[in-house]
């Protein structure tokens, strides 16, 4: 009994042998477009919603964020280039274009395209994860403690007969000099008559 379905599938197999490179290129183009769109989407959503600067973060977390972003950039760049390579590979370069060798080259190219596409997917996923991790760090890590923050006003040394007081200058007029001293911001008023000198300083 003649089973034409078997023959049809044999014909399909012969056709697929010739068209698998075209098929894998189309597949790679789809992945390239998808990965590019995903990278752009994540970049827009997270970067716009995130902290604008890493300034004010503790040094460890600042460097962590920077390292994550550098890593993410390298991975996303590698992923994007790999996806482009997969979608636009080179076939028949520097080889004899005989039927046998070209058939081998097509199979090699299809396998290589699959491998490059896998690399692109992995790099993009890890890179995007690194971006998200960097943004999450910038969201979660609090700003440095107040002791490291710059005071609002200038720091001064106030010399009096009983000693020297250092603090942030709050007010100075003919009656007194008021400075904010200590970590808790306690105000101290020094009468003008007791002040011998008032010297600016970088820190107390």
């Amino acid at each position: 009994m003649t089973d034409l379905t078997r023959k049809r599938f044999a014909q399909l197999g012969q056709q697929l042998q010739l068209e698998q490179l075209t098929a894998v290129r189309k597949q790679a183009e789809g992945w390239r477009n998808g990965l590019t769109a995903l990278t752009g989407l994540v970049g827009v959503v997270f970067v716009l919603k995130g902290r604008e600067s890493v300034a004010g973060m503790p040094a460890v977390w600042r460097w962590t964020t920077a390292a994550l972003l550098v890593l993410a950039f390298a991975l996303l760049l590698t992923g994007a280039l790999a996806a482009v390579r997969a979608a636009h590979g080179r076939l028949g370069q520097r080889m004899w274009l005989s039927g046998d060798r070209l058939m081998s080259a097509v199979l090699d190219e299809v396998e290589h395209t699959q491998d490059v596409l896998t690399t692109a997917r992995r790099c993009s996923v890890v890179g995007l994860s690194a971006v998200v991790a960097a943004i999450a760090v910038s969201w979660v890590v609090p700003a440095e403690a107040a002791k490291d923050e710059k005071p609002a006003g200038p720091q001064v040394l106030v010399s009096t007969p009983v000693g020297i007081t250092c603090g942030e200058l709050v007010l100075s007029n003919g009656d007194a000099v008021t400075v904010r001293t200590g970590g808790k911001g306690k105000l101290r008023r020094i009468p003008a008559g007791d002040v011998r000198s008032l010297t600016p300083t970088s820190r107390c």
Partner: protein
Amino acid sequence: MPPAHDLTPFREQELAPAGNPAVVRSADGRWYTVTGPCPNCHANSVFRVAYGVLGPYKGRWLGRRSEPEPHSGSILVYCQCGFPHPDRPSESPDTGCGAFWDVPVP
């Protein structure tokens, strides 16, 4: 001396293989070449079946892919003699007499 090509009317039919068709695997193991005469029109045919490599390769991170498993059973071969057999429909993808046969893989 093999019999001359016979320009039989086109007909899709399954036949027993004629002569002793040869099945040879390529050096890298990625395709088989089946050679032998068509049992219907007697044209010598060369039929290749390649290993499908579409889809990501599983099971490794680096290095070259391993050689595929050998084909088991038989390979269905159909005539691709290229002669203009009469009664072949113009829309048919066939390029032969329409005959097909199974060749066992050793």
